[in-house]
């Protein structure tokens, strides 16, 4: 009997706990239905705010769908759905439960439009709603949002979230967000001073921006504390700025190195002024594009590997074209630099126009694999993954090339031919073949440079144009015929350029670098590392 009663009680309790949520769900549905009546952005925004104000975690689904532009109104009955792109039509999901409701054609639906301010409103609203999310990265994002939009009303939920938080990184960010909110509230001064010290410890630009507005509005001790904190942050940031310039310089240097290293072989070692060098880089970039195109249509799972697959192919394509150019044109012109210059210039125009005819004049899309997208922070320094990988890649290419030149029989023959062609020929080295293969090697290296450059630049027929002058500058500055010179030349030019840029601007910075190089060449015509010995006289 008691057992029965207990069961009955439990049933009643469950019913009771279910009922209010049913009512709440009906309310939410009624609010969501209002989207259909909103005619402009402010109307939509009002509905979104109302949804967020309910505080129910279930509204996250429709709100994030709205922010991503995936919330639709069915024209026939003005019902609101979350839409999922499914090939030719759109799959409609229930906005609250996320269960599949129906399929529809695009023409039968109206997309609810969003703009930046609406997206911002939703992001801020979701911040409060997702403080207790299971995923730590979502909580982190929520805390970051709340830090940027401080509001006195945030303190209470943040206090609760801090108490429940176990992850130290998230907890720290929660505390900073709370401090930011305290600063805009009417809490006593002691609290505000504590908040200022929490934010000052953060020490980045966001903290600076927040403290600047505190300094402008506060009085007394809080104002002084903010001023002191701003001074402190500014002096640390100045140091980080210098570090940032060096990193940017190294990164630009790695791009210059990649572009120039092939030229260091064809021009530096062989002495051929190859104006079509930039086009070899372009061919490498287009090879990447073709590889990605094939992967997109046939093997979408391999996309993250596309660059690795493109590397050998790009090397091959550019090397073969280089071989053809050497065998077809350049070998008749050895010892006549002016004619070589003009002929290769002509070749570069032909290659450009050929690519334009085959692929069209517009830019081609080369995607970034996931491991090359985004950035990470080292202190106050944001390092982007693609730049970091390009630096690593450039150094790897350099090391491999150095090994080939110094440690393999082929490298030995190459150097022998460069040092004394006739002597090498009498020793039984087939100099024409060494010439051809060396030129192919230089071109192939330019091709793999193109794979890397396709990640940061336009893939268009003009890609090579932008790099040819810089490449020659690096090789001449570093010292013709010396790979180490190219390395040092590339990095020093990159760093000098990036240190000048913030003060002189990009345009003037480039001019100053050019003038410096001209003056340097006047003083040391053979560049940084001049080659000694017979090759110089030859």
């Amino acid at each position: 009997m008691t057992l029965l009663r207990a069961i009955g009680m439990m049933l009643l309790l469950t019913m009771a706990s279910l009922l209010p949520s049913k009512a709440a769900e009906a309310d939410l549905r009624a609010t969501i239905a209002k989207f259909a009546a909103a005619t402009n952005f402010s109307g939509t925004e009002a509905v979104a705010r109302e949804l967020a104000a309910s505080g129910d975690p279930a509204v996250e689904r429709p709100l994030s769908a709205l922010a991503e532009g995936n919330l639709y109104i069915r024209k026939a009955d003005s019902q609101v759905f979350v839409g999922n792109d499914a090939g030719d039509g759109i799959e409609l999901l229930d906005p609250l439960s996320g269960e599949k409701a129906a399929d529809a054609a695009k023409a039968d639906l109206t997309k609810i439009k969003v703009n930046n301010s609406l997206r911002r409103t939703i992001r801020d609203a979701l911040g409060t709603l997702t403080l207790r999310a299971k995923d730590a990265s979502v909580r982190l994002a929520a805390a970051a949002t709340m830090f940027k939009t401080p509001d006195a009303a945030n303190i209470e939920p943040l206090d609760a979230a801090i108490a429940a938080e176990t992850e130290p990184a998230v907890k720290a960010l929660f505390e900073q967000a709370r401090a930011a909110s305290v600063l805009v509230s009417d809490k006593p001064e002691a609290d505000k001073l504590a908040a200022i010290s929490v934010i000052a410890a953060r020490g980045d630009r966001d903290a600076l921006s927040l403290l600047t507005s505190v300094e402008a509005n506060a009085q007394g001790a809080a104002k002084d504390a903010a001023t002191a904190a701003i001074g402190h942050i500014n002096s640390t940031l100045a140091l980080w700025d210098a570090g940032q310039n060096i990193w940017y310089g190294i990164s630009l240097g790695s791009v210059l190195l990649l572009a120039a290293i092939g030229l260091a072989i064809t021009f530096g070692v062989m002495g051929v002024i190859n104006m079509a060098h930039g086009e070899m880089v372009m061919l490498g970039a287009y090879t990447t594009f073709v590889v990605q195109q094939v992967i997109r249509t046939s093997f979408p799972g391999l996309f993250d590997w596309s660059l690795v697959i493109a590397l050998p192919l790009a090397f091959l394509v550019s090397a073969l074209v280089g071989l053809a150019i050497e065998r077809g044109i350049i070998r008749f012109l050895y010892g006549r630099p002016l004619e070589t210059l003009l002929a290769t210039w002509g070749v570069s125009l032909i290659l450009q126009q050929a690519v334009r005819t085959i692929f069209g004049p517009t830019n081609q899309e080369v995607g970034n694999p996931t491991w090359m997208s985004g950035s990470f922070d080292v202190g106050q320094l944001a390092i982007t993954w693609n730049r970091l990988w390009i630096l690593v890649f450039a150094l790897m290419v350099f090391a491999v090339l150095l090994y080939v030149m110094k440690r393999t029989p082929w490298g030995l023959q190459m150097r022998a031919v460069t040092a004394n062609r006739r002597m090498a020929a009498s020793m039984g080295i087939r100099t024409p073949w060494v010439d051809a293969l060396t030129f192919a090697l230089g071109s192939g290296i330019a091709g793999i440079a193109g794979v890397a450059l396709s990640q940061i630049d336009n893939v268009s027929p003009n890609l090579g144009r932008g790099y040819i002058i810089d490449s020659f500058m690096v090789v001449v500055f570093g010292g013709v015929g010396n790979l180490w010179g190219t390395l040092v030349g590339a990095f020093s030019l990159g760093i000098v350029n990036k240190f000048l840029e913030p003060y002189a601007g990009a345009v003037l910075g480039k001019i100053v670098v050019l003038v410096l190089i001209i003056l340097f060449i006047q003083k040391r015509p053979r560049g940084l590392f001049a080659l000694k010995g017979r090759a110089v006289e030859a």
Partner: protein
Amino acid sequence: MRGNFSTITKMFSAGVIAAGLSMSAPARAADDTIKVGILHSLSGTMAISETTLKDVMLMLIEEQNAKGGLLGKKLEAVVVDPASNWPLFAEKARELISKDKVAAVFGCWTSVSRKSVLPVFSELDNILFYPVQYEGEESERNVFYTGAAPNQQAIPAVDYLMSADGGSVKRWVLEGTDYVYPRTTNKILEAYLKSKGVPAEDIMVNYTPFGFSDWQTEVSAIKKFGSAGKKTAVVSTVNGDANVPFYKELGNQGIKAEDIPVMAFSVGEEELAGLDTGPLVGHLAAWNYFESVDTPENKKFIDDWHKFIKNDKRTTNDPMEAHYIGFNMWVKAVEKAGTTDPDKVIDAMVGVSVPNLTGGYSTMMPNHHITKPVLIGEIQADGQFETVSQTPGLVMGDEWSDYLPDSKNLISDWRAPLSCGNFNVATGKCGGKGTN
């Protein structure tokens, strides 16, 4: 990937046949065809943008011929390639007018190419239709400007950013490529912002060279400028090729449109085609036309374009619409004048009104600029723009900016009796000079 060996051979043989035909053509052409010159670069740096405009002109001419031609004659396109070489533009324009005897020329993209052909057109008295948004401060009798003047693009864009919808921006970065269009536009914008009470320390102006590809320093400077506690936006007049690395760097350094939106004046559907727009959703562009505009005229135009170019992935853009409007205006003016004689057509052009692709009518004004709506669009993940704001009515192109001290007293009216492109209302004399 388009094209393979067999299509290349086909194209080559078609070229040979065409060359053979054109040799026998002139004798006949003088009588029963009207020639239209197309002066767009098909090689060199500008080919990326201008080749499309050549194709759209060929399409428009083909359509007009299918409708029965003009004044009972067929139209014949004469295509030349000025190869992105500014002096060559003048040479090719002279060739089109004196040798080929074209009735009108549609062409040019960069301001410097337009400036280079101006003397040729006034000397030989022919007509140029210029389809690209430009810096203004010019009004020539022989040129019809179908692209936007600064007040049809830059000023409404800044107004939008200042409004509550656009985020009530208080701090401005004016980022541009170092040449005449960005410099003049930024001069106008600076004067305009100051007239709206923006203090000088809240405006940062920066220029980069053509084809600039290493944006790390610039993007981090923008980030730094944007962390002063005031809402910041970037107004970008960065040109063509430099845009892709610029946007890639913005995406990688995590600058989101909700925090620091970038409003671009030279980025259209065509430029976005080479980009993954996922990280760029919400960044803005101001134009007078977007491919996504939902009107029957636009739908037909896009369908025709896809059929003509035989590729349904090719996008349409604002300068293409400008050529569409300009060509239809010219056809109407020739019909009105009953002749292709440039003098009579120039007089007949003013007041001609034709439908544009955004659902209204564009009219040629006496200053040789046209009326257009101004649209502000946000970049979407599929590489298209979604219109988030549109001017309530049409905006009339203002050639001499009211915000520059040199040009604020100048007006242009090519109708008789004034017939002057730079009339100074303060001194009552024709022959004022603007900025640039």
